[in-house]
């Protein structure tokens, strides 16, 4: 592992920071970032009873279910507070099915053969600037392994919180789904308000073997900065899934409602024949947030398919860009892709951009692309008000209507949270 990190660091030092995204920010002083911070107390925690009750209280306040009360809804939780995974519930039940769900640092100790086999196989250290940085300095994250034929009995969930000032969070998550397995993975992210910008450069890798399915859902509400754009998280993340086996499936669903700058492209490499990738996204920007997000669907095998539904909502002075790549390799026969990118503008100072890239090297492919742009305006709000619906209800109807194709892909509890989150963010932006 040390060698891996050192090599990555050397690679990173030789790389130049990328500047092609549709976002702008003052230069990051990489020396100035604290790369590791642990909440007190440190050390191995084998059960939640050992966790500092203050920490548990914090999570409760954030509405994050770390305690066993979550057992009723069948969700196992790995909570990562600053750079340390503070607790993973339901370990025993998962063990019964052979499912491994623990922190990456534990996995490196307890399952080195799996880590060696899979880590960096989907996102190599040299992949990009931030992946290289992450590979050198990643501290913790979640590891999840589903053995052959197992449908994971619980939804797996990770909550990330960046608490200490000036800390970057560089978590690394690895999910491996062996043949015929299934897992539903939920990720939630939050951070308190701070004046300075904090960097979140995570890497998430997913491997799906033959006939396996991994569903990965994220609701992200990192602190986005104030209305003048001061402070906020830089969310520069590399997420990629590889459908290695035939008939495998990976689907990414994200609701990005926070961060000063969001720069991420959860992608799927479709190696296996008949494999499929899906990307469902709602990205909301308000105040002075910036987003450049989208996906890459790389079709390599035969009869592969991908679906992209991206909904961008921009309000106030924010800037929201969709960037997507659909690439059909020369040897990929009968590939199918459907892409739909919709933008919703709220007010007249925001911007929405779409940068779709289609690279098709095989003439048997079917590719469909649709895009639309629309506005929420005061007339629509008044129309609904004149029928007895108040402003809050009106925004809710309009935003829900716009996002429903994406929200229905979220697990139920996330979709309720997502709707409320968007309503809250848009409240002051309309009219």
């Amino acid at each position, binding site marked *: 592992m040390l060698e891996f990190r050192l090599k990555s660091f050397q690679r990173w030092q030789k790389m130049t920071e990328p500047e092609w995204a549709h976002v702008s920010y003052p230069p990051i002083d990489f020396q100035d970032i604290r790369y590791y911070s642990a909440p007190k107390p440190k050390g191995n925690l084998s059960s939640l009873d050992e966790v500092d009750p203050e920490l548990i209280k914090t999570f409760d306040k954030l509405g994050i279910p770390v305690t066993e009360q979550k057992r009723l809804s069948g969700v196992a939780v790995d909570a990562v507070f600053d750079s340390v995974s503070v607790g993973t519930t339901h370990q025993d039940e998962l063990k019964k099915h052979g499912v491994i769900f623990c922190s990456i640092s534990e996995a490196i100790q307890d399952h080195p053969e799996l880590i060696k086999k899979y880590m960096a196989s989907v996102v190599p250290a040299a992949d990009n600037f931030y992946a290289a940085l992450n590979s050198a300095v990643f501290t913790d994250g979640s590891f999840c392994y589903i053995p052959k034929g197992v449908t994971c009995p619980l939804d797996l969930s990770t909550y990330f919180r960046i608490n200490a000032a000036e800390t970057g969070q560089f978590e690394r998550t690895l999910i491996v789904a062996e043949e015929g397995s299934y897992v539903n993975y939920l990720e939630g992210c939050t951070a308190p308000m701070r004046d300075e910008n904090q960097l979140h450069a995570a890497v998430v890798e997913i491997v799906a073997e033959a006939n396996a399915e991994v569903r990965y859902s994220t609701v992200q509400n990192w602190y986005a900065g104030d209305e003048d754009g001061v402070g906020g998280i830089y969310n520069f993340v590399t997420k990629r899934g590889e459908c290695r086996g035939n008939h495998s499936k990976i689907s990414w669903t994200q609701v990005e409602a926070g961060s000063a700058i969001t720069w991420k492209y959860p992608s799927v490499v479709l190696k296996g024949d008949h494999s499929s990738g899906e990307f469902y996204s709602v990205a909301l920007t308000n105040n002075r947030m910036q987003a450049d997000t989208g996906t890459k669907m790389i079709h390599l095998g035969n009869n592969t398919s991908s679906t992209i539904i991206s909904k961008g909502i921009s309000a106030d002075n924010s800037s929201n860009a969709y960037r997507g790549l659909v690439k059909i390799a020369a040897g990929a026969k009968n590939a199918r892709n459907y892409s739909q990118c919709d933008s919703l503008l709220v007010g007249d100072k925001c911007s929405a951009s779409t940068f779709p890239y289609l690279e098709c090297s095989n003439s048997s492919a079917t590719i469909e692309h649709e895009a639309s742009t*629309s506005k929420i305006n*005061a*007339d*629509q709000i*008044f*129309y*609904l*008000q*004149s*029928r*007895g*619906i*108040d*402003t809050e*209800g009106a925004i809710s*109807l*309009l935003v*829900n*209507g*716009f996002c*429903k194709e994406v929200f229905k892909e979220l697990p139920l509890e996330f979709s309720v949270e997502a709707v409320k989150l968007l309503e809250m963010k848009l409240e002051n932006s309309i*009219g």
Partner: protein
Amino acid sequence: MIQVKNLHAHVGDKEILKGINLTVNAGEVHAIMGPNGSGKSTLSKVISGHPDYEVTSGEVLFDVNFKQKDLLDMEPEDRAREGIFMSFQYPVEIPGVSNTVFLRAAFNAICRHQGVEEMDPMDFNDFLSDKMKLLKMDPSMLSRPVNVDFSGGEKKRNEILQMAVLNPRLALLDETDSGLDVDSMKIVANGINAIKSKHNAVVLVTHYQRLLDYIVPDFVHVLYQGKIIKSGDKTLAYEIEEKGYDWLIG
């Protein structure tokens, strides 16, 4: 039921309503006519609370639970919940929100306000289909997003469908007949006639006499340059049809 007293309203710098006085009682149908730019649409919009218009003086007193409340103190959604309804001249499109979802949200909001039990989706669907039949509307229209890709006639019928569902005490129908062919207009008029009763009132803003052949007004008012310059019964409408407005303005 409603008393408009000396109502003055601006849009931007321009004063549009220059002292409107109008009383409408339950069971009555009033028609408001007048040349373009006289303020006919503005009157409806101000009563329903459109944010573009600023009221500079006057009152709009509406009977609520045997008391008179000034509508101008109320938010638009509260006015609607007390029973004010406006049919828009140019209904806006609401993509992503189906007619059913929208109608049920509005209906239940009004029920909650009036202390009446909300309807569950099954009962509501039955209730809706009766109203659809009244307006000869295709049931498939319910799952379509509100007014999106609707023809002019469909949009106007959709407005009256909402009126039928929400059952207002005062309906302000702003040029409901404009852009409608004769058959559509008859359907809309029949719908309105079926809804109107001695418990509610209708104010029709219109340019044309022909709608008034189907919905017979008790009173006709002519609005000119922000003021009502003449009121009469339905025969006034015939006179205007014949002679235009010059004889009134001069």
